[in-house]
């Protein structure tokens, strides 16, 4: 499986993501600079975490208008799988590839800890290696992860099974509406999530719970 990681000025979780993709897929991903107007043909494009453009204006707002993101939008429309983690999720909402917005955490504090995630939908290209309702461990580290969508959008997300991950009961770290931790686009090929699955990949991390997400994509590509 071929993958690419888009690097923005201020990305800082790109190394972890590259290592995770290399470890699970066996192939080192291509790192693409945000000014590159054309991405290589890959099976998965990843927007990593960090603080692109110092979170100026709004988190992800300026990165979402970069030349590379125009090509990400084109490729997403053509069916290429796109994963955005943390700042990557913020960039995807700002680019209009996912609905809603990520607001300042309700308690106003930066949160850096491990949470429990419920796999709400395990029939997606990103979650098929997990069991439905399975609860996995996953770290979060963000200041703006409070997912918001208007009632109509929220109803569609819930009704169409587009909530991939939810913070398990009592672990919502940011005030996210309906405990939403990760959502899919309508076609199911774009996933955005605040938690960092790339940080539970090796036994040394203290767990392998994040591997399932990347293994799911490998399975989906092979299917």
């Amino acid at each position, binding site marked *: 499986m071929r993958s690419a990681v888009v690097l923005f000025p201020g990305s800082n979780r790109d190394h972890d993501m590259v290592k995770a993709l290399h470890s699970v897929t066996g192939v080192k991903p291509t790192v693409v600079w945000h000014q590159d107007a054309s991405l290589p043909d890959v099976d998965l494009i990843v927007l990593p975490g960090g603080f692109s453009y110092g979170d100026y*204006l*709004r988190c992800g*707002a*300026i990165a979402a*208008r970069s030349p590379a993101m125009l090509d990400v939008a084109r490729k997403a429309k053509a069916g290429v799988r796109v994963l955005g983690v943390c700042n990557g999720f913020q960039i995807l*909402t*700002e680019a209009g590839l996912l*609905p*809603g*917005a990520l*607001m*300042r*955490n*309700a*308690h*106003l504090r930066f949160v850096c800890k491990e949470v429990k995630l419920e796999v709400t939908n395990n029939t997606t290209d990103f979650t098929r290696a997990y069991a439905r309702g399975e609860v996995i461990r996953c770290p979060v580290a963000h200041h703006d992860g*409070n997912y*918001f*969508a*208007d009632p109509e959008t929220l109803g569609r997300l819930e009704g169409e099974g587009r909530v991939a991950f939810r913070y398990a009961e009592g672990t919502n770290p940011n*005030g996210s509406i309906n405990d939403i931790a990760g959502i899919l686009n309508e076609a199911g090929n774009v996933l955005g999530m605040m938690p960092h699955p790339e940080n539970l990949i090796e036994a040394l991390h203290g767990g392998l719970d994040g591997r399932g997400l990347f293994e799911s994509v490998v399975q989906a590509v092979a299917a």
Partner: protein
Amino acid sequence: MKVRVTITLKAGVLDPQGKAIEGALRGLGFAGIDGARQGKIIDLSLAETNPDKARTAVADMCDKLLANTVIENYDIAILG
């Protein structure tokens, strides 16, 4: 031409920063505060001299970048 864009959160969107400001003002002893909402102001200097054209151009800037219309409203004022 100077144009001022004022960006505010839509009604109904939780504003935790506004809440914190409200709490801090109460803590300082200011009475009678029914609410505080935080927004931002962006001042633009444009080569355009026609106010209508400037307004149209800035609205486009707001829709494409300056505001996130999922959660924010914007107001455009021509300062002259």
